[in-house]
Structure formats: structure tokens, C-alpha cells
């Protein structure tokens, strides 16, 4: 990436100059224009998955995902045009129709901001999944998973280089999983929780928080762990 050459463009009517290779999202941020994102995280590689960050570039037929679109000389960009906001609203409505995003304050705030209708697609098939509780540290509730890939990226080449998580299935059946669907303790997982740290919903949730939400007290959580361990020892 050549950061020497500067590019001139206009975003929401404001002129800006950025080094070549800068994305439209970064360019907008340099002007203090906040473009909403869902899948993007500062610690993981931008993949342009969710399309929530789309912007309108004058003269382009399609909307551009700003997180992966490099700025070009002379571009005129709109980040909150009617077409853009309508698209974002639809993305949120489709997401809400297929996944439980009720425990993600950030997504709820976007629903409100874009006036998204939670009942827009009443007949949609919502993702269901059993809560996976296979280790002492965190649970996995993939009914809340929006497939942002951050956990997979964090586990692989963006943070941890451990490669315990991957993506299984295709199309609507795509889901985050381990190789051969085995429980986490049987994978290369080292329970760093870096995946939990980047999860935008509660699809990955620390067990302590999970149990507190179930109504347990702190001392009960500790006692329960001890009990579970003793049971495990007995059964082995």
C-alpha cells in the first residue's frame, strides 16, 4: 500500500485528502463522519460481509461497502442518502428476522436510528440453536449469531493463530462451528476468549455473566463449578 500519494475526494459535501489505499470508511472517519458497521471490528480484517457500511458513490450503479472500498481521486460520496438509509434499514430488518439480536445494545440502537420495523418479515425463519455449554469459561448461543466472522478471524490470523473455529454449512445454514462439530475442549482452543471479546452479540458469552443472568448468585456460581467438577471426576 502506497501511503505517500494523496487522494482528494468529497464526502457528504466535505472535501478531504487521504493517502492512497485508505478506505472510504476511514476517509469518512477522518472527517468525523460516523458510518455504522456490524461485522467490522478494529482488531479484525474488514471483509465487507454485513453491508451495513454501504455508501453511495456518485456515478456508481451499486452501493459500495465502505469498509473495503478504497477511496479514489475525485469521488463524491454520500454516507446517509435516502438510498443508503433504506438499504441499512432493510439489512437490519432481515437480520432481526433471522437472528435474535435482542441482547446486542449496539444493534438495537441501529434499529432505532434507521427506524427499522421488527415485524417487517413475519414469516421469516429464525435461526435456532441449542446453547452449547461445553467448557468452564464461556457458552455459545448461536441463535444470537449474526455471522460477522469476527470470532473466526480472532481465533485465526487476526489475533490468536489457534484456528479452533470455522464456518460450516452453506447459505442459510451457514454457522460457526468447530471442525467436525466437536466440543471446544477437544479442539485446539486455548480458551483465551479473544473470540468472546470481539463478539457483537451474546452468541459468545462468559459463563459467569450467563449464570448471573440465569439468576444465580456469585457464591452459587462458584459452588456450582466445584460441584460440576466433582461430578465429572466421579463419572470418570
Amino acid at each position: 500500500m502506497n501511503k505517500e500519494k494523496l487522494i482528494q475526494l468529497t464526502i457528504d459535501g466535505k472535501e478531504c485528502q487521504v493517502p492512497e489505499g485508505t478506505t472510504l470508511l476511514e476517509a469518512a472517519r477522518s472527517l468525523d463522519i460516523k458510518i455504522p458497521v456490524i461485522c467490522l471490528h478494529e482488531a479484525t480484517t474488514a471483509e465487507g460481509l454485513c453491508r451495513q457500511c454501504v455508501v453511495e458513490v456518485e456515478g456508481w450503479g451499486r452501493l459500495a461497502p465502505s469498509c473495503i472500498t478504497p477511496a479514489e481521486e475525485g469521488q463524491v460520496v454520500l454516507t446517509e442518502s435516502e438510498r443508503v438509509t433504506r438499504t441499512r434499514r432493510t439489512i437490519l430488518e432481515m437480520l432481526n428476522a433471522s437472528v435474535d439480536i435482542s441482547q446486542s445494545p449496539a444493534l438495537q440502537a441501529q434499529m432505532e436510528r434507521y427506524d427499522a420495523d421488527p415485524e417487517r418479515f413475519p414469516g421469516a425463519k429464525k435461526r435456532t440453536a441449542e446453547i452449547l455449554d461445553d467448557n468452564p469459561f464461556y457458552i455459545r448461543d448461536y441463535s444470537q449469531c449474526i455471522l460477522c466472522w469476527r470470532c473466526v478471524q480472532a481465533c485465526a490470523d487476526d489475533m490468536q493463530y489457534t484456528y479452533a473455529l470455522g464456518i460450516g454449512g452453506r447459505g442459510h445454514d451457514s454457522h460457526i462451528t468447530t471442525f467436525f462439530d466437536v466440543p471446544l475442549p477437544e479442539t485446539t482452543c486455548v480458551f483465551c476468549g479473544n473470540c468472546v471479546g470481539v463478539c457483537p452479540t451474546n452468541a459468545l458469552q462468559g459463563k459467569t455473566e450467563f449464570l448471573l443472568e440465569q439468576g444465580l448468585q456469585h457464591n452459587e456460581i462458584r459452588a456450582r463449578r466445584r460441584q460440576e467438577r466433582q461430578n465429572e471426576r466421579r463419572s470418570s
Partner: protein
Amino acid sequence: MMSDAVKTVRSTCPYCGVGCQVDMQIHENHITRVDAPFDVAPNFGRLCTKGRYGVDFVSHPSRLTYPMIRKELGVQPRKPVGLSGFRRATWDEALDLAAEKFVEIVQANGGDAVGTFCSAKATNEDNYLFQKFVRGVLGTNNIDHCSRLCHAASVAGLQITLGSSAMSNSIAEMKDLEVLLVTGSNTSETHPVISTFLREAVVKNGARLIVIDPRQIEMSQFAEYYLQLKPGTDVVLFQALAHVIVKEGLVNQEFLDSRVEGLEEYIPTLDPFTPEYAEEICGVPAEMIRQAARLYGKANAAAIYWGMGISQSSHGTDNAISLANLALLTGHIGRPGTGLNPLRGQNNVQGCSDSGGLPNVYPGYQPVNEPEVRGKFEEFWGVSLDPEPGLTTMEMVDAAEQGSIKGYYVMGENPMMSEPDLLHARHVMENLEFVLYQDIFMNETGEYADIILPAVSFAEKDGTFTNSDRRVQLIRPAIHSPGESRPDWEIIQDLALRVEEKLGRDKSVGFSFAAPSEIWDEMAQLTPPFQGINHQRIEKEDGVHWPCPTPEHPGTPYLFSETFPRGKGKLTSLVYRPSVELPDKEFPLILSTGRVLYHWHGGTMTRRSKLDDIYPEALVEIHPADANNIGVDSGEWVKVRSRRGEIESKVLVTRRSPQGTVFMPFHFVEAAANILTLDARDPQAKIPDYKVCAVVVEKR
């Protein structure tokens, strides 16, 4: 649902020397979640399992919450007792009694009759005050801490060759390395976050990795060259690398001319260390030694990282010297991406040494036996100080055995789990006149105490920790401390004033600090490399790397760019000394002790956290062929016996262990690996050999 009363507190992880910054979520005085800030060094959002899930020990019900005094006080020999062997006392009673006992010993036998252990888990401020009390009030330099048992040999080796002992690179530059050599460090388990940056260098940025380790550790999967040497043959292998570098003309002549001495004497001593000789001794193919040497020697920049596998050896100093020799020959030191990096173990082991927790130096490594230095401290504290260096950890054990040390003051350490040849070390403790123990939990050392003083955890006080790359960072109070427990610095201050009073001192050496920041300021005033650092500046900049002599100085991310502390780097000749105890007919296997990802040191913390749920018991790792010979499989019980003792443990059959070597973690009191290890010490660093002793493994 959780109540709304959740707050977030930024602090520093209490486990290893990486010094990860953490954001702890607090609910009802419990830590419910730990995250890492993504925009702050050194970890930039990354954590390992210990930092993220292992800090719940602070709320464990077995925390010490009030001072206690041994019921059978004065009965000799003392026996180890649990908490039921103690009675509750007030702070006044416990501190007065402790002061009285110290005064008795000091007045009858002199200050050198007290041995003290400060703590690599406590803050810089706690440790500064501790050594001030020990030196300025008790009047002895008998102060040491667990770094003696971990990196003492690295310190000694680097002192000889460079004149300094800290890690020369910053963690921030790891991901941009070109060539890196990792040896004697199971990085992904002992410094997990550092291992992610090293792997990033390899996977993402095309760095080339050499791993040298007897165990087939995870990092070896990322290596271009994995040299699986026989335990204890390190010097031969590193000298053979040097041999190739010299013979093939891969030395950096310009660097040698300007910054290195001892070349003429050193070069001929390499002659015997041919790759073929090394193959015979180390079991590594000569050709692979040549290739690894070429990779390291030809690199523009190459850095070396090591851990306990290098230092915890009866020839640990030689190991460290042999690594320094490689860096000096090739000029791979003093530039970004080059350097010699002992990865520090405890969260504040760097800081504890920096703050004067060593028998031979005041804060900032200023020698106690240099009159000018001593004069500065004497003048500032207003007291005359002992000009002789004190005793090291294990020399204190010897002195206690001989009777010249009568009393121990142990703060936040567990020597009764970490010393080698534990049965002997425990026996020595039985005959002490007085033991003062200060910690957050009862542990194997506390069982020998006369008085127990309850301290507070990292999550309940403020102060600073200094991580492995010399970055001074803050810890902040996040929860209320349990019961009557108090911060270490407050306890020391209170005790010191009482001892001074009972000694009849007319003038205090100064224990009227109102906050840790004031303690830091006094230390910085006496310690030139800290003078540009204070708590307010760290607060503003998240952390500052020392040396940092002035407020305008930015701090020092890598060392030795112009010169070495001793002037020129010194190439140092070495001979191969085989390990002290080698396998024989009766004890046919080598035992190597170490650590596992999910546990920490003597287990005092991790075994009281969720981490114990995933790794609840000791496992002895055995190669399939050895397991077959013994007739055991994974999960079965064995007896492991050495000339010193015997323990029982379950087996894990794994190819991580080379044939002929078994591995055991030392975290588990019910299978304490250090019952087996031997008290054979490196002659210079006095560090014991935890990596090679002979054992026999039998089916139970």
C-alpha cells in the same frame, strides 16, 4: 438479569510478565468479565485464558481476612499447621508481636539473622518499601525473591556479557521481526499473548522462526527449523551455531570491531564445537544446525527469546552467555528487531528486581557495595547501611539450616512450593525462631508461620507493575478488600514504625507515605533511570518504558543502541558441563519440570479460579515408547520417584515429550514436582536446576 450497578476498571493483569492491560467489569464486588482495550499496548485487545478467566481467585472464600497468631507459639521444631492452628488477632497485637520478635533477633544476633522474601507479585511501591524496611531498619541486605529461581542465570549471563539484564526489545516490535529464535520457552503456554505476536510475525509478516527445545511445544509448529535437543545440552548447541557462524564468515565484522571485545580469545575455543560434535551430544542433525546458523547469521535483523528452559539449569549462566555470544558475533543487538530477550515470568518480577528486591543492589541495580551509591541512600534515609551484599534465596535456606538465620519475613511468595528439594527446604523451616507471613491466601509456606498478616490482591489497591519489556503500568482498585486485609505497603509501613520504636531509633528512615504514588516518587528520586516517570504520567500515557531519566524523555523501547552498560560487549568462552544428575539404571528417565497454560506457579491463585476446572490435577507427560515400557496409558496412575522423594500422578501419553524425558508441572501440591528435583545450583547465579534430574516412573 444482572443489576445495573456494573462499573469497568482499567488495570494490569496479575499473571505473567507480558503485563496485559485489562478492563474489569465489576458487579456486586465481583469481577464478572475481563476484556482488553484494543488500542493500548502491550496486548492491543488480546488476552489469554489466565487474564480473561483466571482472576476470580480474588473473591475466593478462603481469602485471609484478619491477622492470625500461631496457637503453639514458640514450640520448636515448628510443625506446618492449617488455619485451625492459628487464632485470630488484632492488627495491633499481630504487628506488635512481629516487631518484638524482629527486634529480639536483631538485637541478639544482628540484622543478618533475618532472611526476607519480597514479592514479584506485589507492586513496585510495595517492594521498594519492603527493601527500605529490611535495609534501613532491620539492617541487612538479606532480601531476595523468586526471580532467583527463574531468571537469575539470565541476569548473571547478561551482566557478564553486556552489563545489563533486562529484555532488549519491546513487545510492540515483535510482530515486525525478520528472524526469531525461541529457545527454552514454551511461549504459547507461559507468555500466551507474546506468542500470538510471534506467530503473527511468522504467519502474517513472513518472519522465519527457529525453535530450540527438547519438548515439541506448540511454537515448533510455526518453526522453519525445529531443533529438538536433548535436555541440558544447550551450551553445545549454541556454541555449534556460533562455530558455523564464525567458520562460514557470517559474523558482523563492523560490529565486532566497534562494540565487542574478547574476540581473539573466544574464537579458538569454538574449535571443538563442530556441528558433528553437537549432533552427537545434542541429538540434532549437524546439517540442521548449519542451516539454522545460516538463517540467524545471514539475517538483517534477528532476535532471541528465551524462558526458564535456558535459565533454570545448573549451567544456566553459561546458557545465557552462549546466546549473548551469538548476538554479539552477528551484531543482532541494539537495533529494532534484534536483541536478547529473557521473557519474565511473574507480572512484576522485572519491577521487583528494579525496586531493589535483590541482595546486592538498591533500586535501579545500584550496587550496595559501591560507597558512593550507598552514601546516597544513607544520606537520604538518614541511617548507616550494610555495605556487604546479602544472601540469595537458597543461601538463606542454607543459613537457616546452619542457624545463622533465625527469622524469615515472607511477603507474597511461596518458597515451600517453588524451592527445589522441597522436603529439605521444609525441614529447614521447622527450626526457625520466627516466621512472619504476609499474603492473600494461606499456602504451604504460611503453614510454617508464627504470624499471618492478610494482604490485599491486585484488584484492591493501586500501584505499578513493570512488565517484561520494562513498561511501568498502573493497577487500580476495582473491588473492596475482604475483612480487615490491608495493602502490603501499609502493612510494611506500620510494622516498620513499630520496629523502629522498639529499637529505640530516635529518627525514622521515613514511613509516612499517604499513597503508593508518593512511594514511587521517593524511589524515582533515588533512581536515575526512573526519574522521568510518575503515576500521573503513566495515567496519561498508559505506560512508560524505563530507562526514562527526565519528564521530557519518551522512555526507551529498545536498549543498547549506542553502547552496552559495561562498555563493549564481551564474548565469553564456555565449556560443556553435563547436567549434574543424569539418568542411570536405577533412575532411567530425565524429569523436566515446568508450567501448563491453565496454571500459575505454586497454584495459589489459579487453583482457586475457574482455571482449575479445566486442568484439575497434575499430569506427568510421557512419550508413547516410554509409556509402553512402563505399561501405562493416559489417565492411569504412576509413581514418580527420584533420589529425593516420590509423588503420585496421572499420566498423559504424548509425543510432546521426547523419548527418555518426562515432564511435570509444579503447580500441584498433591503431586509437588519439586519433591523430586535436586538442589544443584548454577555456580554463578545460584539458580537451581529444575529441568534435568533423574527419576524412575512405575505403575502404581
